[in-house]
């Protein structure tokens, strides 16, 4: 069925389009538009409930549990999250290079540098690994929060925080699966310039997920 995969990636050039654009690209941008509203709803709720939790732990303040007398430190870990943010940011660079590699697949590579830059599998791997590393950081963060007494049920902060970052993490996970699928195709039959659109759509999704994290990092972690 190798021709079938070849066909889905071929540009819809046999069919007339009004703007000369691929419909799938139009659709992914429409999808991204809807995701703006999705995440704004989650972010708004987080911000609405900021400072209104009845019990701790809290993101940026200490809290003394009146029942036990335990003092709980502010639970957000800025250094660790800054590191994971950096990793996700770099993953966007890798993604962009992966797309460029696919677009330029057929061009001759003369220097070592060009060959490295043109290695689509390398950059797809790097993106996927960076994404997975980010998810690893998230998993670490979530488990340590639970250890420190913050679960999704604890208070308004816990509910809104875990739901917001959880949804984001789920989107990253879907993105990693998408990247792995692209890698599988690259190994199976190779990704060439005619597959640009396929990789471009994945890239747009990936960058958008990164961009959402930029907003979350600022509004949740940095602003008190």
């Amino acid at each position, binding site marked *: 069925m190798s021709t079938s995969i070849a066909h889905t990636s071929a540009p819809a050039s046999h069919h007339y389009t009004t703007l000369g654009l691929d419909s799938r690209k139009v659709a992914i941008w429409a999808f991204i538009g809807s995701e703006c509203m999705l995440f704004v709803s989650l972010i708004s709720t987080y911000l609405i*409930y900021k400072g209104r939790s009845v019990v701790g732990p809290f993101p940026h303040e200490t809290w003394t549990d009146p029942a036990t007398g335990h003092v709980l430190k502010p639970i957000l870990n800025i250094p660790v999250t800054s590191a994971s943010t950096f990793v996700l940011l770099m993953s966007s660079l890798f993604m962009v290079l992966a797309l460029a590699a696919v677009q330029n697949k057929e061009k001759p590579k003369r220097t070592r540098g060009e060959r490295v830059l043109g290695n689509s599998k390398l950059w797809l791997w790097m993106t996927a690994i960076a994404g997975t590393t980010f998810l690893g950081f998230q998993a670490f963060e979530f488990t340590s929060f639970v250890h420190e007494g913050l679960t999704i049920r604890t208070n308004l902060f816990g509910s809104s925080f875990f739901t917001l970052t959880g949804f984001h993490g789920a989107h990253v996970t879907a993105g990693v699966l998408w990247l792995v699928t692209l890698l599988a195709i690259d190994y199976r039959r190779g990704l060439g310039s005619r597959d640009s659109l396929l990789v471009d759509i994945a890239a747009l999704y990936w960058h958008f997920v990164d961009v959402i994290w930029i907003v979350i990092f600022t509004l949740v972690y940095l602003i008190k």
Partner: protein
Amino acid sequence: MASTAYPAPAHAPAYSAEQSGLWSWLTTVDHKRIGILYLYTALSFFVIGGMEAMIIRAQLGAPNQHLVSAEFYNQLFTMHGTTMIFLAIMPLSAVFFNFLIPLQIGARDVAFPRLNAFSYWVYLFGGIFITVPILFAVAPNGGWFGYAPLTIRQYSPGHNIDFWVIGLQILGISSLAAAFNFLTTIINLRAPGMTLMRMPMFTWMAFIVQILLVLAFPVITIALVFLLFDRFFGTNFYNTVSAGADPLLWQHLFWIFGHPEVYILVLPAFGLVSEVLPTYSKKPLFGYPVMVYSGILIAVLGFGVWAHHMFAVGMGPIADTFFGLSTMLIAIPTGVKIFNWIATMAQGAIRYTTAMLFGISLVALFTIGGISGIMHSSPPADLQQTDTYFIVAHFHYVLFGGSIMGIFAGIYHYFPKIQGRLMDERLGKWHFWLTFIAMNLTFFPMHFSGMLGMPRRIYTYDSGQGWDLFNAMSTAGAMIFPFATLIFIYNFFKSRKSGEISGANPWGAGTLEWTIPSPPPEYNFAKIPTVTTRYPLWEGKEADHESARVNSQEGKTPAQLGIVMPYNTIKPLFVAAGLVIMFCGLISSRAFIGIGAVIMIFSLYSWLLSPLEPEHH
């Protein structure tokens, strides 16, 4: 005006042999067939929602009745609203999005035919999921708007609300997928020469609706996620009891969706009427650009009025003023449309077909609904009106008098195009007049009982409050609906079988869908037309007429024309089934989540990695 009549063929064109039978329907990716699937399903749910209304009216016909318990009454009005909005009106609009958009823009299908099929199957399965519970008296019972904290586990412990939350979540997926599809189709698949300002008005309104869907549905998705998480995982989003949650969070999120939703419900009907009135007045739509801009303005403003549903919660003077003002403002573009429709008819050569009667009735009845609407826009006045039958009167005038009448206009107008035969006009007029009388008799008195203080959502009431007569009138009016509907159903099926053959353009209309045979061939257009005007059949140049001549010919197969058709495929149905099974797992055995996920992912990969259509060069 050039001749638009083509001689009607001796028999209605039939589907080819491979395209008949149950399997062909289960695997179809043809937008026309999917439109027909939506039609039957949506009309069925319309009848179900109507029956729920009948029981409500029977119960309220006289004071102190106990035909149904208070608890069951809650299920009835919840399901009546939920069914009519999500399972009847929106899908009835989808009938026309599906059937009509490609035909009106000169395309062979939508941008993503398999995604289109997926949307339908998700709707069907989701509709069944949310409807079956009432047969076991565990239907959703928190109102169609499911206000939290009433709907959190603590105050609604049974499964009722679970069905509602999950059902709506499923239906939202259907609508969103369809919105991406139609949005892309309208943007990217218009025939050469069809600029945005040459598109038929229905397609314009549909375009605006898709944008509203894309922006509004994610918000209710999150509101529902919060409720789902609260009910199933113990989160605190609506936990006003112990966690300090805000009782208004649900209301705001819901209505940020809910208000654009009502424009989603009415704009398609507006679009249909904008096709019907010009056709039967033999005049182009008056003020086309203004109709476009007012539609856009309604959509934009529609995102800024939502809290007018919350004037009684105590938001403060600034919020009340802002939303009161924005609500008054939105009446302007809406009113402009009414005037444009009237101007379209003025000095036209009017033919009072059934479609035209329904179309004209929308103009009148929606205006009445709009007048009560503008009365609600003042926060102090609304304090009296809110939560009374005055509101019930308002929204039934705009939703029944507006959406439903407009949809019926569309059905009568487009039935010939879909089926190749005309509906019976005499039966149609009976249907119209009975419906018109029933509608007004049922809902007009509610203005009065509402003004006299009759609250919404009460299962019975005491005599002596001044409400008895009005309720009796409403119930009497409601009793007429079954007869009207039966006449319509009879007409529908009879005409399908033995109605007069219609030919390509029985009404002498002007837009592209009327240039092709009725019913259209699978490929729609033998040759993609080039468009030079808004009404190619009325104002077109020679190229338009030549296109029309070529495209009106019948009997050609795709192979003969060198047109490649997409494969039929069962995969969208399986993905839809897998998805719904996953959701079912939340209520029943958790194993279903895994089973559903496997079916869904496997079918999805299979779908994505297989081609839409055969190779061609």
